[in-house]
């Protein structure tokens, strides 16, 4: 058996290929991106012609996968945690329709917000949707669990949520690959050709079916090999570990075994019998989970009459942020190595725009054009250009969710703010900015929308952007007056021209779109390197 050094994300990608997927549907987002990239680059994907192009956003990705599943084939969907907010409508309703071919949704959560706006926990969505959740604890387990997830999805005929967090996604370990691989499914219709028609009469039946399946999901968890009870000699405490939490616990017991009983959870709904067993055997429980205290809240005793439940809620572990071996050592009052601390002389080194990046030229021009108006007029969005919030630019006043810059600029203009501008990236615009622009056009809003087009999804590593070559025609199609769609190359030599374009469009009472277009310099360099190689 061959051992390969794989990121958790790559292990998932390989697992999906070996599980016989016919398609991967995704929009990039740290820490999930490498799952799809791994599949895209794998020779088997080309050989089997696995559907693998990036989707415009997470909702279109999820719906594409659901369509593939309707047609009987296996589909993988990947996104970062906040992507599930975008795809939530499709996701929640798909637990009413059910699936035909296996459908597995991998969501990568980002506790500690290494590269995200929040640290929401996708297990809440799984619970909300009332479907099984899988949460691997290692790269090897992640690889194997993908195949299991597809089998599970096809046997219960529901989507399965596969939840990981940054540390597993972006850490490598040796993974040994299975010799036996699944063949892809052939085309087939779902068993009931009306099950996807969620008219109220059908939806009510589908909901009843989903509710009736809850006992089955519970039994599956109880019998799952991913939920493991390990006995211990010291019953003063029982420890419940979800996903990778077990690694941080065991890191503290490399010399001698952990004295406390442990329940390791890798499949949800949480296995009732096993949870009751550890509760009945131990004086207190410690719940260790990455992300929100989801399981802890379920087990916590509201009226304080039962056993003490420890974890993030009672302060035994921090309420926010990712776990670490040290936090577990603290929680268990184990001795820790002394450390000298960080010398005071060390200063922060935040990320910054690359030297030569076109976003910089855009911000320089924007700052100059806005001088007479002062700070507070620019809504922005998520991407490399968000770094325009930091010195030396300090140009933008918002970064909320993909596409929000356009609609927030409109809302503020509605309220009377003048001038009201948006700065949005090309990929962010086609992800979720287009619909907001339609609102602005229909309302004749007095806004200036700057689509800073670097022809790349750069913040996540330079994937192809759905917007490339289409921005002008999209804006025209949405109904922006062609005289107020202004294209310019963001470059030092065009500085004065850009400043005057921005000023002119501020003066225009209506929707203006300015599109500074110049390829991301990292992408240019990468393409050059690739060309030299071939």
């Amino acid at each position: 058996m061959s051992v390969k050094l794989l990121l958790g994300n790559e292990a998932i990608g390989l697992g999906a290929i070996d599980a016989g997927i016919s398609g991967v549907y995704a929009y990039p987002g740290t820490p999930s991106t490498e799952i799809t990239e791994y599949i895209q680059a794998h020779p088997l994907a080309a050989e089997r012609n696995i559907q693998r192009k990036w989707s415009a956003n997470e909702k279109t990705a999820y719906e594409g996968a659901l369509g593939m599943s309707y047609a009987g084939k296996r589909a993988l969907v990947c996104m970062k945690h906040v992507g599930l907010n975008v795809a939530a409508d499709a996701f929640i309703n798909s637990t009413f329709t059910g699936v035909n071919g296996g459908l597995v949704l991998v969501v990568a959560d980002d506790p500690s917000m290494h590269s995200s706006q929040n640290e929401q926990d996708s297990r809440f969505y799984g619970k909300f949707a009332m479907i099984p959740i899988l949460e691997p604890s290692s790269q090897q387990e992640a690889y194997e669990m993908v195949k299991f997830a597809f089998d599970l999805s096809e046997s219960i005929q529901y989507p399965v949520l596969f939840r990981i967090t940054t540390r597993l996604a972006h850490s490598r370990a040796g993974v040994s690959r299975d010799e036996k691989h699944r063949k892809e499914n052939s085309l087939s219709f779902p068993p009931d050709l009306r099950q996807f028609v969620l008219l109220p009469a059908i939806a009510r039946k589908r909901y009843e079916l989903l509710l009736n399946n809850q006992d089955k999901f519970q039994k599956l968890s109880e019998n799952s090999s991913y939920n493991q009870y390990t006995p211990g000699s010291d019953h003063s405490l029982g420890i419940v570990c979800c996903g990778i939490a077990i690694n941080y616990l065991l890191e503290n017991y490399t010399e001698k075994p952990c004295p406390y009983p442990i329940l390791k959870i890798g499949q949800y709904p949480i296995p009732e019998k096993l949870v009751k067993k550890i509760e009945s055997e131990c004086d207190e429980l410690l719940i260790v989970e990455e992300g929100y205290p989801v399981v802890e809240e379920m087990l916590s005793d509201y009226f304080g009459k039962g056993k003490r439940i420890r974890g993030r809620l009672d302060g035994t572990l921090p309420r926010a942020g990712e776990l670490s071996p040290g936090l577990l050592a603290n929680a268990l009052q184990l001795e820790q190595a002394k450390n000298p601390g960080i010398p005071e002389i060390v200063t922060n080194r935040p990320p910054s725009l690359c030297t030569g990046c076109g976003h910089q030229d855009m911000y320089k021009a924007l700052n100059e054009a806005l001088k007479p108006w002062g700070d507070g007029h620019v809504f922005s969005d998520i991407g490399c250009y968000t770094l325009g919030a930091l010195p030396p630019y300090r140009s933008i006043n918002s970064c909320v969710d993909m596409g929000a810059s356009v609609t927030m600029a409109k809302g503020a203009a509605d309220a009377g703010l003048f001038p009201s501008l948006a700065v949005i990236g090309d990929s962010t615009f086609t992800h979720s900015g287009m619909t907001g622009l339609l609102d602005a056009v229909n309302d004749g809003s007095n806004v200036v929308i700057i689509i800073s087009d670097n022809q790349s999804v750069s913040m996540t590593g330079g994937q192809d952007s759905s917007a490339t070559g289409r921005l002008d025609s999209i804006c025209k199609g949405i109904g922006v007056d062609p005289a107020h769609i202004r294209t310019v190359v963001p470059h030092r030599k065009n500085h004065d021209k850009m400043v005057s374009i921005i000023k002119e469009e501020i003066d225009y009472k209506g929707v203006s779109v300015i599109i500074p277009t110049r390829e991301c310099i990292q992408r240019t360099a990468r393409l050059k390197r690739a060309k030299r190689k071939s």
Partner: protein
Amino acid sequence: MKTNIILAGVGGQGILSIAAVLGAASLKNKYYLKQAETHGMSQRGGAVVSHLRISDKPIHSDLIPMGKADIILSVEPMESLRYLPFLKPHGYLVTNNVPYKNIPNYPEMDKLQAEIDKLKRKVTINADGIAKEIGNLRASNMVMLGAASNFIEVPSKKIEEGIAEIFRSKGAAIIQLNIEAFRKGKTTAKTTP
């Protein structure tokens, strides 16, 4: 055998190549390995770190516990100090002494050197200078790997095989250059007090 290494640098400086080489070398030696990387936002010129753990026994945590790193291997002097809480009391700090100044308030180099000098076991070398001498500044990360290899329990032969594997697609000349950088780093660190 168990070696915990903190790899530190600035996004774009090539610490992931160091990690990849050591990973390939460890696998060739049939060691277990876990290697947590920084992807995403910080890669845009921010501080990046990789936790690399090599052992002959299975490894639990992807993260090195505080105070348990045997080596801090940094391609930038200030970054070498950022992760001091991870270093064992008698661990080694091995760093490039050429600063990467992409922030306005970068501290004075002699003050950084004074902090580094407080440590018992440290090696600072001019990896950029050595790499330039050999013919390519981009090989400075392999110079640093060479400097640290004196304290890593993976045979240098295996590390050189790892270099050959990781740079295979770049051709024989680049492989040779990087191996040379590695060797030069190794001998320079040995002769540095």
